[in-house]
């Protein structure tokens, strides 16, 4: 469905932090988006973080000022979208370059002329000189216009040219750790690329990955991702290599689930999902071990009756919480009371059968909400899921607790 962009970049003055920043007193990880004019910087930011339909990016106006847009995921981010022809001095006047954690330079795949490459390399080198710790990324953008072979050819060509330029400037720059990615807003390559950028910025990534590895080995899952629901970027994945078709499938699945929510939302019936539990049960369930009773019941009961396994008692608090049911689909509303945590976690599963007969029993794609913004997507063999669903969900509960703890620690560490 077509939608016009909800905001044009020129309507946001440079000094505000975009829309209502949810946590203004928090130190944000800053990402700098640079590139020539019309290379695609604003459309990247809008498509990823503001739900803009790729076709609508055609109507985006030129960015005239540096706009800072906050986004909260596992870590709070701030994306600095700069106009194409900004001079480095002007940028330095806005903020010292040392406070940026990552630099993404966006270049149009068809714009491989020498002046462009020279300018790009110069910019990157001067920023690197000021801030040697910055993570350097080059997005070779708009890759959808070329066919497969030309895409890869141009990509390699660009890499070589950049390396040549760097060694021309100085031998110490030959080993500059620049990461190249081929991206396009019309497919999921942009999400993959940006996800990898974010991985380098998350300090607790190794803990998240460990959690995922443990989950995968215990649930016989072949691949698992921890996705940020709104942007559909994956903040962590398990140790097995990410293969693009699987990532695309999970991304599409998440997109579908996000779209389903509002379709069958009932004004009268939906909020009834959140019921007030009796206080004693609520207290015992909101402590760290959130489900001591129910999973142990599940181990004894038949796995095909998942009724006992889910910590099913949601907490519904005062009216303010209820009015927030219109927030994101698939996310439980936050609780206002100090001891109540939202206990209802949406989940979904899709079973896929292989098209070629005899190729195996089929995989199930599972989705479990982990925090308000993160969801666990895993591929589990259908046979395992059907037979041992209760155990898988039991594992998810512990996974969820682990991720929530990590997120809490991250939040506290950044409190200014």
């Amino acid at each position, binding site marked *: 469905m077509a939608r016009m962009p909800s905001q044009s970049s020129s309507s946001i003055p440079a000094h505000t932090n975009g829309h209502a920043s949810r946590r203004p007193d928090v130190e944000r990880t800053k990402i700098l988006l640079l590139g020539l004019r019309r290379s695609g910087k604003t459309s990247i930011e809008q498509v990823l973080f503001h739900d803009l339909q790729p076709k609508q990016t055609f109507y985006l106006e030129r960015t005239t000022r540096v706009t800072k847009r906050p986004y909260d995921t596992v870590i709070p981010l701030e994306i600095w979208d700069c106009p194409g022809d900004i001079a480095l001095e002007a940028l330095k006047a806005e903020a010292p370059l040392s406070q940026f954690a990552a630099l993404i330079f966006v270049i149009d795949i068809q714009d491989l002329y020498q002046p462009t490459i020279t300018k790009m390399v110069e910019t990157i080198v001067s920023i690197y000189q000021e801030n040697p710790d910055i993570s350097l990324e080059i997005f070779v953008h708009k890759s959808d216009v070329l066919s497969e072979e030309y895409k890869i050819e141009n990509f390699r060509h660009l890499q070589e040219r950049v390396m040549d330029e760097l060694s021309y400037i100085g031998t110490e720059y030959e080993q500059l750790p620049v990461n190249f990615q081929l991206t396009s807003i019309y497919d999921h390559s942009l999400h993959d690329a940006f996800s990898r950028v974010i991985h380098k910025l998350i300090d607790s990534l190794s803990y998240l990955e460990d959690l995922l590895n443990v989950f995968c080995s215990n649930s016989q899952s072949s691949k698992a991702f921890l996705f940020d629901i709104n942007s559909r970027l994956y903040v962590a994945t398990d140790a097995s290599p990410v293969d693009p078709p699987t990532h695309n499938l999970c991304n599409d*699945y998440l997109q579908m689930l996000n779209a389903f929510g509002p*379709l069958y*939302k009932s004004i009268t019936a*939906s909020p009834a*999902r959140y019921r007030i539990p009796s206080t004693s049960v609520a207290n015992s369930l909101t402590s760290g071990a959130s489900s001591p009773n129910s999973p142990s019941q599940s181990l004894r009961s038949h796995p095909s009756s998942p009724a006992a396994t889910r910590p099913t008692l949601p907490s519904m608090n005062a009216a303010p919480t209820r009015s927030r049911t219109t927030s994101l*689909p698939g996310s439980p509303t936050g609780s206002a009371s100090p001891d109540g945590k939202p206990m209802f976690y*949406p989940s979904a599963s899709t079973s*896929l059968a292989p098209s070629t007969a005899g190729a195996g029993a089929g995989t199930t794609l599972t989705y479990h909400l982990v925090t308000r913004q993160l969801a666990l997507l895993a591929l589990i063999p259908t046979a395992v899921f059907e037979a041992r669903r209760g155990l898988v969900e039991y594992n998810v509960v512990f996974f969820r607790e682990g991720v929530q703890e990590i997120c809490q620690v991250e939040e506290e560490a950044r409190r200014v």
Partner: protein
Amino acid sequence: MKKKVLLMGASGSGKTSMRSLIFSNNPASLTARLGATIDVEQNHVRFLGDLILNLWDCGGQDAFMDSYLSTQQSTIFQQVGVLIYVFEVESRNKDKDLEYYRNCLEALRRYSPDAAVFLLVHKMDLARSPKEQVLERKAEELRQASGDVPVTVYGTTIHDESLYKAWSGIVHTLIPNASVLSRHLAVLAHACNATEVILFERTTFLVIATSNPPAAPTFSAPPPLSSTPSSTGSNGFTSTSASTGTTSSVTATSQHAVNVPEPRETDPHQLVPTRYERTSELIKAFKYSCSRVREEFHALEMELAEFTAVLDELTKNTYVLIVVHDPTIETAALRMNIRLARHKFEELQGDSLI
């Protein structure tokens, strides 16, 4: 049981693209590669297993149109069940389009007087806004051109869900026992304490029947082809379109026009009216992504914050979606009910289409 469906319209209006999207499960982006249809392309599309749609995709170039109206007239226009005529919302040569349309309509009256006529105003994504007004104006023009033949007009585009809505409406009139199916779906809904139960066709994911068609229609559909009376079931799809901009369904004659308050006011849940076609579109898109990983979509269940739903195979040609708002109901219970209902629906399907 075979039903002949004629798909006609000017050259380049989008007939083959529609066919590709709905029946061949290709995504909208691939339709750009389709070339002009030469003469008539006949397709036998299996719908609901026993119902075979004999789809005649007639090339729209002038030379072909002229031959349809002269030498091939009887072959083309005989024994037609449904005529679907496609117009582009902004066409270069409106008068010629209308001229051809009038001639086709006349030929149809001569050889298949009982055929139902559906007019699709296609490529609505290219229309200048306000789209509703453009569509209304075009629909009025078309109704005038049709004379006293009752027609149903839909505004469509391959880039959103409106095409599914139009085709669901069209196909619905071809299913003889739609109201019986609705009744049984209502029983299933009651057993599951569900808000809604929707029956989809397996390959095209067009909506066949739902458990709660609105009690009285706002607009009525033309008389269906088979002998069953024009029941509430067949009108389930044409009435809830008032709130969406790009689609509307209007009838030419007023013989069945019953102006009743919109069902939305009586519906306590106030679900989005475009949900049927949006569901078709979403699932089709997901099925396409699954096929790229060489896996086939099989079933889906979800327990989200707003509702619980299970989408699973019901019979070998249909899928059923059960939507429940009661948080205490587990998906396993819904699947068990589906399993138990399977037998009954297979029976229904078997003896109804003969």
